[in-house]
């Protein structure tokens, strides 16, 4: 094949070769039937041309229509069912990623891709991944529907506003591949393109090292701190919110009696529309952060919560003074689901900011750097909110939280 005229894109993922095989089969079926019909038509046109004197008497058996019709209905049906089954099997098999994928967050907006690695680095319109490891993308849009498409991986997924969608792939070939937006999204739809760069593990590690940012989980924790989340969901004194350790992935009970698994959509809803999802045994006093956190920030918090999904105690995980978070006495990791007043024994500080814990809810400070999530100038990732002297306006006295 002429190198300068491509016919097939690179096959660079674990599923690509199987998709290509499936495609080749489908193409062959198309070819066989099309050419077959064309040949039959051509042959009949020649043989039975109107000026030709040939035997045109139809044999009686040919008039037995229903057997013929049945045959040429059943044979295509069988072929179709085979193709359906193969495709369906592949579809189901490739739906869930293997264990321990690398987690990547994607926020799409008109007209760029904002990508965040769980270990911290952020990229615009580019995604560096290591070869040979599954990568899972959790994606959301800030505005309209987009679609994350990597032809070399034979994979795409629409990216919706208001809802997470996921896709995963595992790269099998080093190189740089096209990333396209594949759902029409406005003026610069065709410019919403980028690259997926597949690196060797060593190169990838080096690349990560060279990106000087904190991990997404770290960012998420700092954000929860400066947004005041930890004042209700944290340790030390007044606690009104469910503890965050061991929360992600658990089953919880809501006030209306329904049970839910704490997954990404649950967390997102809990942050943006808490009043629709009140936990049993807790007071319904959490405010909504809708419009106060960008999608990237929500995803960072998600990363943090995932990082403490297996931890003990009310609050733990990355952050300054981690050692001071170790509980003085062992506690069970699953908080009681009913009748709890949300209080926990003091387990030491959360860090330098913990001294300004007990504020009334109405004074919950929010970092000014936070910008509304929808289309109002939220461009590149906001800088992680400075935590040391961030939100602390007002007094430091411990007041009762009403």
């Amino acid at each position, binding site marked *: 094949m002429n190198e300068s*005229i*491509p016919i*097939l*894109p690179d096959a660079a993922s674990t599923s690509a070769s199987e*998709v290509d095989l*499936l*495609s080749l089969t*489908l193409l062959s*079926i*198309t070819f066989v*039937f*099309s050419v077959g*019909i064309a040949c039959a*038509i051509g042959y*009949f*046109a020649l043989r*039975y*041309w*109107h*000026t*030709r004197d040939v035997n*045109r*008497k139809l044999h009686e058996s040919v008039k037995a229509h229903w057997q*013929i*019709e049945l045959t*040429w*209905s059943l044979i*295509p*049906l069988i072929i*179709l*069912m085979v193709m*359906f089954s*193969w*495709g*369906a099997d*592949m*579809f189901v098999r490739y*739906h869930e990623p293997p264990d321990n994928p690398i987690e990547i967050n994607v926020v799409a907006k008109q007209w760029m891709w904002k990508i965040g690695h769980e270990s911290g680095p952020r990229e615009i319109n580019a995604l560096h991944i290591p070869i040979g490891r599954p990568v899972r993308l959790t994606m959301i849009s800030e505005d*309209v529907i987009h*679609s994350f498409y990597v*032809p070399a991986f*034979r994979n*795409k*997924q629409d990216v*919706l*506003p*208001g*809802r997470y*969608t996921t896709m995963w792939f595992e790269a099998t070939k080093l190189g740089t591949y096209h990333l*396209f*937006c*594949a*759902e*029409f999204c*406005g*003026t610069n*739809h*065709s*410019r919403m*393109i980028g690259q997926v760069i597949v690196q060797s593990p060593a190169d990838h590690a080096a690349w990560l090292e060279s990106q000087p940012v904190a991990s997404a989980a770290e960012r998420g924790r700092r954000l929860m701190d400066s947004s005041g989340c930890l004042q209700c969901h944290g340790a030390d004194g007044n606690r009104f919110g469910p503890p965050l350790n061991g929360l992600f992935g658990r089953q919880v009970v809501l006030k209306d009696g329904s049970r839910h698994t704490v997954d990404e959509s649950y967390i997102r809803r809990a942050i943006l529309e808490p009043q629709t999802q009140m936990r049993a045994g807790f007071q319904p006093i959490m405010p909504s952060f809708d419009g106060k956190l960008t999608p990237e920030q929500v995803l960072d918090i998600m990363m943090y919560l995932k990082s403490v999904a297996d931890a003990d105690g009310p609050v733990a995980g990355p952050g300054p003074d981690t050692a001071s978070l170790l509980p003085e006495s062992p506690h069970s990791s699953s908080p009681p689901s009913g009748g709890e007043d949300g209080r926990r024994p003091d387990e030491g500080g959360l860090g330098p900011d913990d001294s300004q814990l007990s504020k009334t809810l109405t004074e919950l400070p929010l970092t000014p750097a936070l910008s509304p999530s929808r289309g109002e100038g939220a461009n590149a990732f906001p800088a992680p909110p400075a935590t040391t002297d961030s939100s602390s306006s007002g007094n430091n006295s411990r007041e009762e939280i009403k």
Partner: protein
Amino acid sequence: MTESSNNYLNDGSTIRSWLLTTDHKRIAILYMVSITFFFLFGGAAAVLIRLELLTPEGDMMRADTYNKLFSLHGIIMVFFFLIPSIPSVLGNFLIPIMIGARDMAFPKLNLISWYIFMTGGLFSLITILVGGVDTGWTFYTPYSSTYANTYVLLAAAGIFIAGFSSILTGLNFIVTIHLLRAPGMHWFRLPLFVWTHYATSLIFVLGTPVLAVTLALLGVERILGVGIFDPALGGDPLLFQHLFWFYSHPAVYIMILPGMGVVSELMACFSRKPIFGYGFVAMAGLGIAVLSFLVWGHHMFVSGQSVYAGLVFSFLSMLVAIPSAVKVFNWTATMYKGTIFLKTPMLYALGFIGLFTVGGLTGISLATLPFDVHVHDTYFIVAHFHYIMVGSAVMAYLGGIHFWWPKITGRIYSEWWGRVSALVVFFGFNLAFFPQFVLGYLGNPRRYHQYPGEFQVFHIMSSLGATILGLGYLLPLCYLTWSLKYGRRASDNPWHAKGLEWETSSPPPTHNFVTTPIVNEPPYNYGQPHREEEIGEGEPAKHHVEKAEVES
């Protein structure tokens, strides 16, 4: 030379007699002229698009302009050309005659349908004039409901209004076919053209209202700023897609079923044989219409709908291929031991069969889930649907226009020009759209104003093919129009075809028949095929056929 003075064309020559006619044949002509006009608009948009795509950069026009062009191309071609084409032109003209009736069941409603269609078309033209719409013909939310600052409401209103024309046409067809058949015209003596239009009408009346209400909801969202489909306000963008595709998938069968009916007529006549498996072909058409309502989710495999939905819709989409395959096999078998003539209409019919097979089988490929995940929203999709809508539906329309041209106009067109044009169209079409299959698999997304340079060679091929195709379309426009004044006058039955329409004069009298026909033979009663010299009057007839005197 005396022209038969008592046909529908002569029966009144004022503008009023045309614009206020209730004669289904005149209404068909009104539609024919109007959709040709819309076709030119949609075609012009296509020309500009393909010109821009000659180069990878978006250097001919701004991105917004390009987006508006492909949106308008889709809207005009789908709603104002393809959907009305065969049903409103050929269906309106032929159905009453084919069943032996004097007119449609509701002649005045028929005329109103045309005015409604024109009103919708007017809205679309105004949309173009004031600045266009750029959402694509699919109007996905929340782009169309909240973000687009183009004339979404105007465009949606035009489609909404034109939809009622479809609904009323379908209603008219169903009642006509049920109740106005001539004595002896039992259901299984009906031409397959009538059967497929019946099936199409079922889709017209049941599917179009859902599109109407979906567009209405979109309008409400845009006007009031509420969040029916916008997630930021609590809505669900996938609900829009489900509602939209619930109509728009059956709509594509509206665009192909009438063409299948035309092809059945052509295959029978130009093989001098009844359609093989007539009953099965008739039932297959109904089967396609019913199944078409069950597969809409195959447009949404990567939309975020559940895995289960994907599996169900993939399975059902496979099923809908079976009746289509049955038709293709039966048409091919019709040629077996027939007496074959490759006249212009037959060339179009054979082109249809070949291109529909390719288009349909690529549809099967798309129904296979992992394949669609890769090529959804790429040029593969564009190629697939153009193979069906242009390679098949438009070719069937042209084939039908040529076949019934003597009946409709009383004139014979030039057979030589007809065949040349058919070949130009076939060649141009394949050059235009086959490379797009490759483009799609390579990953070139659709609706892209600019594209990576390595795709250019295919775009150049495609644009060249589109140019040739456009020329191929202009040719019939010329020679058919020419024949109106200079073409030979046609006899009642220049093709020596079977069917009630060929037993009345060319053109027919205003009331179609002098006396109500009585039917006592099966359809396509060509008798035993045998060697034949010639049919048609494009060249000197070898055996002369009397031009029938028409009694007034």
